[in-house]
């Protein structure tokens, strides 16, 4: 998503082809010199205000959401294509009080809305780690929606100052052929009734459609994972509706609460409607838990 003037024009073509909005075009034509600065007031960002209005209508967003979520992201990122973020829920999920949804918004990205992550009381803890693409200097924000309908936000400013280190570009066909290997790995020992950390990794190019392949000098079409559904014992624990804001080889760390032996299952769909799955049996017996990956 690092773009020069020439690539920006191509990006615009790509967006038009993809049905991008005209509003996006106007914003994207702005030169980096006008981009966000760390001292800016994050509440005054026009793209955020537009999004907030469209998504949340008149509902207030508590910008001091520290008691609900904390967001961790590096102030300086060496690689704009892989910026790790960690969203830490500040209380456990209970049926009476829980975080229902996290929204990810990256102000300066060509498509600022990065998607949402839904949780349930069975998630145990609505914390989430992943890696995202960011455009240059930007505010990155997460909005938590609790089950009572209240909204809380956490904001970080990220400077993606790197760019020299990105790999010279893989062969797109090879990257697609490799797509779909899924690893679903519970971390640590299972204790029934306690939130357990799990890592989900999907081998996938998750292409934006906006980056030039440095070897072929061509723009590849957008191709990314759009939905991730994770269930335990057939009950949802984490559902992500995401886009190419998520980095190549999408990686998610989140929680679920096992209450009895059961199967943890991940179902993944990409924009070519390819579906990938992985499942792992969970029991409180000690022993390595290996996921099996299948590509139906």
């Amino acid at each position: 998503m690092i773009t020069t003037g020439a690539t920006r024009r191509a990006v615009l073509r790509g967006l038009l082809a993809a049905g991008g909005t005209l509003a996006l075009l106007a914003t994207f034509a702005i030169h980096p010199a006008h981009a966000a600065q760390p001292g800016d007031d994050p509440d005054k960002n026009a793209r955020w205000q537009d999004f907030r209005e469209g998504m949340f209508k008149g509902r207030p967003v508590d910008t001091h959401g520290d008691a609900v979520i904390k967001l961790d992201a590096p102030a300086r990122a060496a690689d704009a294509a892989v910026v790790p973020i960690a969203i830490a829920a500040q209380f456990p999920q209970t049926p009476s009080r829980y975080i229902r949804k996290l929204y990810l918004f990256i102000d300066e990205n060509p498509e600022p809305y990065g998607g949402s992550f839904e949780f349930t009381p069975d998630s145990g803890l609505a914390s989430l780690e992943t890696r995202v693409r960011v455009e240059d200097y930007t505010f990155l924000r997460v909005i938590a929606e609790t089950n009572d309908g209240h909204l809380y936000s956490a904001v970080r400013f990220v400077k993606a100052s790197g760019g020299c280190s990105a790999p010279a570009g893989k062969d797109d066909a090879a990257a697609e052929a490799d797509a779909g290997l899924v690893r679903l790995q519970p971390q640590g020992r299972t204790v029934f009734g306690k939130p357990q950390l799990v890592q989900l990794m999907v081998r996938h190019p998750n292409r934006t459609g906006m980056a030039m392949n440095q070897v072929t000098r061509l723009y590849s079409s957008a191709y990314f994972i759009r939905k991730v559904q994770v269930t335990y014992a057939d009950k949802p624990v984490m559902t992500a509706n995401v886009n190419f804001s998520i980095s190549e080889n999408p990686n998610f760390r989140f929680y679920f609460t096992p209450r009895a032996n059961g199967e943890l299952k991940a179902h993944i769909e990409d924009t070519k409607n390819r579906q990938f799955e992985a499942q792992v049996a969970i029991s409180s017996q000690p022993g390595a838990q290996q996921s099996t990956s299948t590509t139906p």
Partner: protein
Amino acid sequence: MRIRWKAAARSGAPAVIAMLMLVTSARPVWAGPGDMPVPVAVAQGVYVMQGSGDAVAPANRGIVANNGFIVGASGVTVIDTGSSYRYGRALIEAIHKVTPLPIELVIITHQAAEFVFGASAFRDQDVPILAHRRTAELIRERCAICLTKLRRTLGEEEMAGSRVTVPDRTVDGSTQIESGGRQLALLHFGPASTPGDLAVLDTSTGVLFAGGLVSVGRIPELRNENIPGWLDALQRLQVTDARIVVPGFGPLAEKQDVAQTGVYLRQLDAGVRRAYEAGVGLTEAMHSVQVPDFSRYKLYAVAQPQNVQRLYLQLENQ
């Protein structure tokens, strides 16, 4: 053409002492922050311009890396060119103040923003620019992005005239060349700090320009590295005839100081592996993996978490 290096260090205590005095007296002369460093003679005909060693910032105008030039009997060889066209121009002027001899060749030690963009000033004067083939390829593929980022950081005015300048002469491995009347050994030890690192040894004085391989008092930023190859390269530098080492960043060093870069790389690598194998997540690893012996080095706060991330992701993709 491959060359072999004598493993034996040159003997002669007086010569060593004289060289050490040179090293200590070769502190850069600064007129003020952000000004052009003045060329300092570190050996007969060998001049070094030392950058601040900090991260690129408007206050230092991007003058952070070291570069230098070698004045031979018939001409001048320039080693690395700084981060802007403006710096390249100033470098040319500085050389003209030292000698009327023509600039015969520019050598780029490796692909990194702080070393390559001054080359555009030399290209304007039709000076040949030499690098390892992989460095030339990476400059062509990657440097447009680096240039955009540098413009963002330093501003249009500071970067005016800077452009991606792909070297027009390449080598595939170690070789010995004659340039400006000096014998120069170009040393390539395989992929190390980047795929195409060159170190340049002025054989008559023993001054070694180590480029990306060596960083003194500053955390190396891992960008395109191969750690086993890099450690190997640092060991092989030890058995060259180098008597003064000009690192890519930081003050001049003696050959044995080169090992510090390797110590850092080993400790970093071990720390990331431990965290990864223990199931520590990336964000937490970026906070928790520290290399305390090097925490006082320049760039530690910024480069350490970035280096951790880079190695962590490599482990994940294995």
